[in-house]
């Protein structure tokens, strides 16, 4: 049986971790002995966050503490796949403890992490080094933008794989007739590239009626969290705080529009999940969202650094007639309908030469 391990040294709960977990789940259903390896410090939180998958609590998750233990865990694998820059370093260190490891390596590049850290910082150097540590590594990307940046910056031809959405969670629901337009936005106050200030400004203007009668909701942070970080919670905006994956799905199902005003999005998972719920996205043009979101057909794209561009796209979105909105919802649902964990798993196995 093909053995495959994804090294995921995180607590879980975020979109990218969900993606890996649901794809590993699909691989296991396909008969592959796939599992996830988590570092000891995050193991408990990871199990809690992903307890709805039986295999997470039943031998599908290995725990390591240091390179020696990771080396022992991966020694017999057919392939070992990194999922973050730090996991690449973990694998490289673990491989040094083994004599002539036989497994092949992969790096599922979920975002271009050198962009996350200040230029010239140690964190950025570690993220950059993650593209030169594993010899013969297969690089996997979920968007053309990611594949291109990996190729142009490091010369690696990254295989493009199918993204996955948990359609069991993210699906359309019947909306009440005549309900007020509801716009939701993701507010990530601790992540500047997700543009929390820009998002809060726009939510505030929405709540103040600058775009007509609209209900404005922000998720990802509570008013107290914003205030603690010196950010002014805008008047009239409902802030839900942090939500579980199911909570986000419920919110998107009942919303008409989802705003992602990030500086860029390597893939744009939440926009894709919004589309799967029939909620029309407005997403950044810079990045990988353009792969699945056709501007004006299945949602809207904007130059998020330009307020006029965002305003224009939002006005177009909010001024759609009922029939136009229905047509666009169908196009959005159709665009991401094929993003299934099984297709994603198959495409990854093929990219790794295991399919």
């Amino acid at each position, binding site marked *: 049986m093909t053995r495959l391990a994804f090294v995921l040294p995180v607590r879980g709960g975020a979109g990218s971790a969900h993606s890996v977990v649901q794809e590993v789940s699909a691989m296991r259903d396909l008969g592959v002995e796939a599992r996830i390896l988590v570092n000891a410090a995050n193991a408990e939180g990871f199990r809690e966050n992903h307890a709805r998958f039986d295999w997470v609590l039943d031998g599908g998750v290995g725990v390591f503490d240091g390179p020696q233990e990771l080396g022992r865990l991966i020694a017999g694998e057919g392939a070992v796949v990194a999922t973050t820059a730090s996991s690449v370093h973990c694998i490289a260190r673990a491989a040094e403890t083994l004599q002539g490891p036989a497994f092949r390596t992969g790096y599922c590049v979920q975002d271009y992490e050198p962009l996350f850290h200040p230029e*010239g910082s140690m964190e950025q*150097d570690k993220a950059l080094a993650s593209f030169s540590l594993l010899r013969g590594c297969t690089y996997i990307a979920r968007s053309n933008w990611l594949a291109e940046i990996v190729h142009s910056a490091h010369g690696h031809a990254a295989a493009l794989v199918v993204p996955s959405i948990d359609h069991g969670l993210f699906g359309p629901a019947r909306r009440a007739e005549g309900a007020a337009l509801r716009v939701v936005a993701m507010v990530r106050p601790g992540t500047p590239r997700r*543009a929390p200030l820009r998002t809060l400004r726009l939510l505030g203007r929405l709540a103040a009626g600058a775009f007509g009668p609209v209900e404005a909701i922000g998720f990802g942070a509570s008013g107290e969290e914003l205030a603690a970080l010196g950010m002014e919670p805008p008047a009239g905006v409902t802030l839900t705080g942090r939500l579980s994956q199911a909570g986000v799905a419920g919110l998107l199902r009942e919303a008409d529009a989802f705003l992602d005003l990030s500086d860029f999005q390597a893939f744009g998972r939440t926009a894709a999940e919004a589309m799967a719920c029939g909620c029309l996205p407005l997403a950044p043009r810079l990045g990988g969202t353009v792969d699945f979101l056709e501007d004006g057909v299945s949602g809207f794209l904007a130059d998020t650094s330009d307020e006029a561009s965002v305003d224009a796209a939002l006005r177009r979105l909010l001024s759609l007639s009922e029939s136009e909105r229905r047509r666009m919802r169908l196009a959005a649902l159709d665009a991401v309908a094929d993003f299934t964990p099984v297709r994603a798993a198959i495409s990854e196995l093929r990219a790794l030469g295991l399919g």
Partner: protein
Amino acid sequence: MQAVEGIGDRMDGSTETGQEAGDGALRLHPDPPSLRGWARPAPLSPDPSFPPEIGLDIEGLGTRVLTARADGAGGFVIDWPLPATLRDGVPREARAFHLVTGRELAGSPLRLEAGSAGEAPAPPRPAAAAGFPPLSRWPGGLAGVLPAAMAELAEGLQGGAQPPAATQRFEMVPESQSSGPGVRLLLDAASPRVSLLFRLDEVPAGRLVVTAWLPEATEPNMHAVLELSIQAREGPGFRPLRVLRRARAFRRPVEIPVELQPSETGAGAWLAVEALGAKGLAALAPRAAPQMHASPRFEDGRLEATFGRAETFARIHGAAPRPGPAPDPARRLPAGAHPFTQVVLPVHNGSDEVRACLRALSAAATGPMQVVVVDDGSRDLTAEMLREEAARDPRIVLHRREMNRGYTKSINEGVALTGADWVVVLNSDTVVPRGWLDRLHAAARARPGAGMVGPISNAASWQSLPAVKRPDGSWSTNDAIRPEHLDRVQALLDAATERAYPDFPLLNGFCTLISREVFDRVGLYDEEAFPMGYGEETDLCLRARAAGFRLVVADDCFVFHHKSVSFGAGRTELTRAGGLEMTNKHPGVVIPVLERMMQENAVLGRLRGRLAGIAELLAEGESA
């Protein structure tokens, strides 16, 4: 520099004075540091529109030639930004003279001092050093070896390491334009804790940045846990008060921000920078954290710079720019067409081959050139032979060091002695053909933006032909080609070449024509990371590519290479050390990708195909 009163300075629009009748004038401007002034064409020049050239004799650094440019109003102006090599804090005197008349320009001699200009205000000292001890008094000298126990290295700076390290070698890192002073600590053995402590007597509370790195590569992408803490002096030792943060130190310097509370500065407080499990540690004196600049494009103000770094990597790894139309292969290169070029030839023993190299250089010249031989402490008859050769040809200049300092220091010293716009760094086990500089310069001219040009050879890794590698995977030296075949091989290459001048991501360092602009913009070879070679040329190529220069192969120029007569001992270990330094210095650069680009180069592939039978052709020539 001296302020020169009454000098006409057309760049400034000021009026000229009684010195107007001279050949020109120069003065140093502070911001950006540059020499500015004006010059007249030679009085008897047949073409008064031809820009005059000014010679600049710089103390200890040879002569540079500055070419004036037309100012659009019938005159000629000079505006020469001081290169990095002249902004190193060393005061130097420079004399400027008209190259045709030989007369000194008004304002000369100039004093180039510490990057400042005359009476103009000196650039502000880096915020770094403000408030910190000057580190100007080094009781044990600027470098030395001490027991590994905690010891004073300079005023306000302590260093030491826990056993099993027994001795520590410290080297001062001088203050520069962009950073404060610092120290490099190298141990005889890895230590569980290596410490550097900076006194905080006059430091205001607030955000500081500490720059730290590991001074020697001992493994790929090595890093060590770094602990930054506030400590108090207690007797001969120190007592930790608060750990500020934990970070990681790498081979490449990284900046680590820390925040000091008001109670943590002042008399008796020290900032400890400690590496856990390392064979050394280097750090600069802490400095005030720079302000984060808002970005007009992104809410995350860091993204402009981080996307910029990604673009730098794309320049290194990206497919080579599309070549323009190749020049006519039949075009004859006019003799003497190339600009003045200085050849830096590092020598360490190897008498016969070095003599052959020098004789070939003399015989091959078709234009203005000079050979700067850097004799790096040759022990045998080489030194005597070099003196004979220098006496034989005045274009050969000898620069001798009594002690062998290593290959990279040699070539840097040689480059620092040159002043020409183009320099060739050449191994002394080479033989060049007649017209070789014409060919290298033709390649540079054919590819705008070219910063470095390398020739074809029998033994120059991916520039080799007919074979690149031997069957066992090692680099081929194509032994069928011998020095006496050089003219014949060059003739065969003339017939086979496309003169396509392909772009390469790296050039073999055995023979490289390098533009002065490359050194000015990216600096010299890195003699700290690659003291004995084995990576210094790859490092320079990567920095040049990152800066946007093109690297070009002159596919119509063949230079014979014996390969490795000098600096040849302990190659395996040196190659490994160089590889580790490269990995650590350029994280994220994938050398195999660059190798693949060279392997896939179609121009050289076709050339190798055409010359695959060169051994037979040479044998036929010999039998005939």
